[in-house]
């Protein structure tokens, strides 16, 4: 009654020192041995059941009223929280409840790194009393994965005060260490399986890609053959296109995506530069920067990279044959921006032979550029034949470019 007006402090509820004073009643080595054996069996066959079994053993060995495991969950904007799992006994209905990392018995237990004992902690932790939870005495044991990584705590609640002794603390620490080891094995195995799956995915995707590449190359050869009048011309067209693909490939970076898939990505600017570079290096070019490239960072997926590489290659080839890149002092401006989830790219030629009117016949190159932009990327391409030079506008949905 005298305590009613005194604020309860952590020191009032934390009574770990009591454990040393309470000597174990006769140690039951047989029970202990059976418990370890039991956990070992679970470890071998059902590693995922080790924790529920640990809780059950804690209930038995300590003759407890309730027990459970709190697992630590990091949170982006706070020090994280604990979530209650595998609850048994009187508190079972609170399974899934969360408690704050920095204001909870579990937090103290992990901070101290040893078993702790608390007496009616609801006097200090208001969230316990708010939930109408009363813990006459609770023993908490830290759970580690392997040696260092703290995972959470095992907690065991007694019906009455004066229940736990140093023997309980020792046995439960041993069992918890054993369970932590089991979890580490489980995680290692999971990682191994994930790696193997990734490997398989990689192999499958590689095979798919190679097959696809052959189909594309086949079409490319057939199409180049149709457009060329001599074998030399065909070889030139074909190697130009293959080169564009090879150059595009060189700016692509591979990385594993979130779901274990291989994600390939490239940036637009290096792609534009690498595709146009052969034209910049032409010996007859008088201006050193006949290509002006400008635009924000845009990430491209594999298909987007290949498509754009071929489109840009066709535009450049066309410009070299008939347009601005045919003249020594001609130039090409490539600008782009991203607005409402669309890439808007402008290709502007100047300094080429004057254009009198739009060509009447569509060449292969522009048919190909059209198919790539519209059919493959779901976008649009428009040509504006200004007298001073061709201007092309390409618009492509970003979501298609990044696939």
């Amino acid at each position, binding site marked *: 009654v005298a305590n009613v007006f005194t604020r309860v402090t952590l020191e009032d509820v934390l009574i770990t020192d009591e454990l040393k004073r309470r000597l174990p009643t006769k140690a039951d080595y047989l029970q202990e041995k059976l418990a370890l054996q039991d956990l070992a069996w679970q470890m071998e066959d059902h590693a995922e059941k080790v924790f529920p079994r640990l809780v059950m053993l804690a209930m038995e060995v300590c003759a407890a009223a309730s027990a459970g495991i709190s697992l630590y969950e990091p949170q982006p904007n706070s020090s994280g929280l604990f979530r209650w799992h595998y609850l048994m006994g009187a508190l079972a209905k609170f399974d899934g409840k969360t408690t704050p990392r920095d204001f909870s018995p579990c937090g103290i237990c992990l901070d101290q790194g040893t078993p702790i004992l608390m007496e009616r902690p609801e006097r200090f932790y208001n969230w316990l009393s708010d939930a109408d939870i009363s813990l006459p005495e609770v023993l908490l044991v830290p759970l580690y994965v392997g040696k260092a990584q703290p995972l959470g705590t095992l907690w065991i609640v007694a019906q009455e005060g004066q229940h736990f002794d140093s023997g309980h603390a020792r046995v439960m620490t041993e069992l918890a260490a054993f369970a932590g080891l089991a979890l580490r094995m489980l995680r290692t195995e999971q990682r191994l399986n994930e790696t193997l799956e990734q490997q398989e995915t990689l192999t499958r995707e590689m095979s798919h890609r190679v097959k696809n590449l052959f189909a594309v190359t086949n079409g490319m050869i057939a199409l180049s053959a149709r457009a060329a009048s001599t074998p030399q011309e065909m070889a030139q067209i074909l190697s130009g296109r293959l080169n564009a693909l090879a150059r595009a490939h060189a700016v692509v970076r591979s990385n594993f995506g979130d779901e274990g898939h291989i994600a390939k990505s490239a940036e637009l600017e290096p792609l534009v530069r690498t595709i146009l570079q052969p034209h910049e290096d032409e010996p007859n070019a008088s201006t050193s920067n006949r290509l002006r490239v400008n635009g924000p960072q845009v990430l491209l997926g594999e298909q987007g990279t290949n498509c754009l590489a071929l489109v840009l290659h066709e535009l450049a080839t066309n410009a070299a044959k008939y347009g601005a890149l045919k003249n020594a002092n001609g130039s090409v401006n490539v600008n782009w921006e991203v607005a409402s989830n669309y890439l808007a790219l402008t290709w502007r030629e100047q300094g080429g032979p004057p254009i009198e009117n739009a060509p009447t016949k569509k060449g292969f190159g522009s048919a190909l550029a059209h198919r790539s932009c519209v*059919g493959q990327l*779901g976008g649009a391409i428009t040509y504006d034949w200004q007298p001073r030079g061709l201007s092309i506008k390409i618009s492509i949905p970003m979501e298609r470019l990044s696939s």
Partner: protein
Amino acid sequence: LLQNVCILIVEDEPFIALDLAMEVETANGTVIGPAGSVGEAFELLKTARVQGAILDVHLSDGDVAPIAAHLFGRGVPFLFHCGLSLTPALKTQYQNASVYLKPTAPSNLVKAIASLIRN
């Protein structure tokens, strides 16, 4: 071979699409498309009447099933030209369909669709 015949080509790979288109034209057929997506193909089918179709299976906006169903409902013959295999759904739905794995020479595809149309 395809005199006075309109052929719908659905194929999202530009090289293959154009190569096929030119082969159809070489056989005196009229090309509808090529369409690179299901949406584009439906757009074309609004105005064009086709007598046959060559369908790629996996397109940028989904598989070709809606187009196949549309053509099937109108008795228009078609064949599948696919990279790996038909989707399980297409396989069960069109058990007698002609399926050509890529790469197949465009001239063979044209011959095949011509004979489907004749019968």
